């Protein structure tokens, strides 16, 4: 699936010495925009962060010699040694709990949960400690750690290999939850997550790992260096993935390309849909989302997760509370059904697709003018 979303940057400036050095090694192959997968963008973010800061360490199951089951940590052990990227025993609570201690003691661990549905043994550590440590200690203990989770469906995975678990994390006060949807954001948002002094749950849409886009890595690095220098970042900001005027599709992570495909199809039928890429579920960018809905007057929220008690429901509630008088129709949700994640051969019935999104758009009471 190809990506169309790139955020142009006007940023220019000097790259930090370490980044420049890291970049120089591969400069010949990285000049100007190049076709890159999301997996490679995330991998590059890890490489750059590890070059810049010795406190950044990576560990998890099979992330060392193998480079991870999705190859996201490919080459890290070779480049940085087995002290900075290493395999752990097979125990998710151990991985996250150890990361808490390391973060308490000067490190910035980036740990990998092998699959979304394998992360649940770590749930107590995440909910009871990762999310609460900063609050309990009134900020005396910061936990600058990232929990990377290959996330959501669409890959025909067998049981426990596909889950949309964002609501558990988003519901837990004290966690930031990022869900990148584009190749550029894979790089950009992971750098932001690693830079964050707060713990971040980083949800990587596995069906998009091998999607490609033209990105200018050098430009992304310069942007990051500029943001670091200026103390600014795009953290917590949603993006307009496609501009439109008639209705707003709100999506995140794996649902963004689906929403974009739906918008493209709608355009052929003469309907102009705006697509908002939420990017960061926590913090949530009410401003960008609501500005779009105020403009269009209609909205559909799209997510793979079950609709009941979901992030999609939260978005609907927030938009309704903030934009009531601008709405021409009730906000619709297109989500997964309220069933356990289905087997591969049933998956396509479950996942929100273009047709289901277009049906929801058709239902937005077009006969009534806002």
């Amino acid at each position: 699936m190809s990506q169309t979303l790139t955020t142009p940057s006007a940023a220019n400036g000097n790259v930090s010495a370490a980044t420049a050095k890291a970049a120089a090694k591969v400069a010949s192959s990285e000049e100007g925009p190049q076709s890159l997968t999301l997996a490679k963008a995330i991998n590059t973010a890890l490489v750059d962060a590890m070059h810049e800061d010795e406190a950044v360490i990576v560990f998890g199951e099979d992330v060392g010699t193998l480079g991870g089951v999705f190859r996201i940590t490919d080459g890290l052990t070779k480049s940085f040694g087995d002290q900075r990227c290493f395999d752990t025993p097979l125990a998710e609570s151990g991985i996250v709990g150890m990361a808490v201690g390391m973060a308490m003691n000067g490190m910035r661990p980036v740990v990998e949960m092998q699959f979304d549905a394998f992360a649940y043994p770590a749930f107590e550590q995440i909910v009871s400690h990762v999310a609460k440590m900063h609050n309990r200690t009134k900020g005396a203990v910061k936990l600058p750690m990232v929990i990377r989770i290959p996330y959501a469906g669409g890959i025909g995975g067998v049981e426990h290999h596909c889950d949309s678990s964002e609501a558990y994390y988003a519901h837990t006060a004290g966690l930031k939850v990022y869900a990148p949807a584009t190749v550029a954001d894979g790089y950009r948002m992971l750098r932001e997550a690693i830079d964050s002094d707060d713990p971040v749950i980083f949800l990587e849409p596995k069906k998009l790992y091998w999607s490609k886009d033209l990105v200018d890595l050098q430009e992304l690095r310069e942007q990051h260096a500029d943001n670091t220098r200026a103390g600014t970042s795009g953290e917590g900001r949603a993006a307009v993935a496609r501009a439109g005027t008639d209705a707003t599709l709100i999506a995140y992570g794996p649902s963004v390309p689906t929403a974009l495909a739906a918008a493209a199809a709608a355009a052929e039928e003469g309907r102009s849909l705006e697509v908002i890429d939420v990017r960061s579920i926590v913090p949530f960018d009410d401003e960008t989302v609501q500005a779009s809905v105020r403009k269009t007057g209609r909205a559909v929220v799209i997510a793979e997760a079950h609709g009941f008690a979901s992030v999609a429901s939260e978005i609907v509630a927030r938009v309704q509370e903030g934009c009531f008088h601008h709405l021409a129709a009730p906000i619709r949700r297109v989500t997964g059904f309220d069933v356990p994640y289905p087997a591969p051969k049933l998956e396509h019935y479950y996942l929100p697709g273009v047709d289901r999104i277009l049906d929801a758009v058709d239902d937005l009471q077009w006969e009534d003018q806002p």
Partner: protein
Amino acid sequence: MTISANHEAPDEAPAMPGDGALAESLLKFGISVEDYMLPARHQIQMVTPDGVLVPLGEQGTQPGHEYPLPDDSELLAAYEQLVIGRRVNDQNSALVRQGRMAVYPSSHGQEACQVAAALCIADGDWMFPTYRDSVAIMARGIDPVQVMTLFRGDWHGGYNPHERNVGIQSTPLTTQLLHGVGVAHAAKLRGEKTVVLAMCGDGATSEGDFHEALNFAAVFKLPVIFFVQNNKYAISVPLAQQSAAPSLAHKAVGYGMPGERVDGNDLVALLAVLGRAVKLAREGSGPLLVEAHTYRMQAHTNADDATRYREDSEVAEWQAKDPLTRMKTYLTGKGVLSSEDETRIAGRAEAVAAQLRQGLGEDVTVDPQDLFRHVFSSPTPQLEKQSAMLADELAREEAAQ
């Protein structure tokens, strides 16, 4: 764990258990892997409940592998902390009865473990305590009133963990052991010689994180002492319903680390065994497990009724093994503890009790805006909105009064 005082620990821990390197390196000790890792046949006891020094051959160790007796000044300083610890426990229980604290899980009867835990590690080392380890945290040097903030109920923690390298008291069981493992791992990666003392109780050894913490520490060869206070009960459930292991110390060998059992009401033995464990860990032995046999003399908390699950006769039996009277008799008989010392120490204990009474007797003013201040490093727009909503609500309430 049977390690001769006359032998140094191996410079480098073996690469992997079972690959022969372990057995080879242990040749340095002149004993088998089994003798190294399995606990001694009996708990280590150096002073009897009557306060008499146990003869060298009868302390529980194998011949030639005795623990050295801590020196007199160390024992006297430890006794002072013991007396303070008991006073703190009794004062806190009284403050709960007076409604000054929501709850207090007392370590009455376990003070020797509490004191030894605090004294066996160096300033740069770390301690990871549970909710019942308040006395150990105070003995480590944290302000007593700050420690009690958790139980007073105005915040879920009252001290800065970085001030004295003490993890925030953990209520979820054994989760903090993994934090200790992480602290030790980070230090090791930087080449620092930091030792971590990670504490839990007997019931907690049933938790999954106990297993994961011990296994991680052993695999990464980290200098962590897992200190298990076996006080015989997990609220109401006796140890026999938690574990069928020969002893909790025996669990260590399954992870490839040495385990030892010690009389947890014998402060002398605790200082000797934990002192040795810390020394070995610092020298690169990898993790060790020390199980202390003690007894929770009081109920789980003030909200618990211990008469529902244990006999008075059992409590009386342990009363006779009290760590304070034992140490007092021993040190007095040894000529280390004078009546002047006793007066001075009692005065110190009373001063700490007074500090607690004063600090917890004051009515605390809570700031409702604290709810929002520390959720993240800087508040999200949503939290800012909620903070403003609460401020407005309170302002209107005030205006209406």
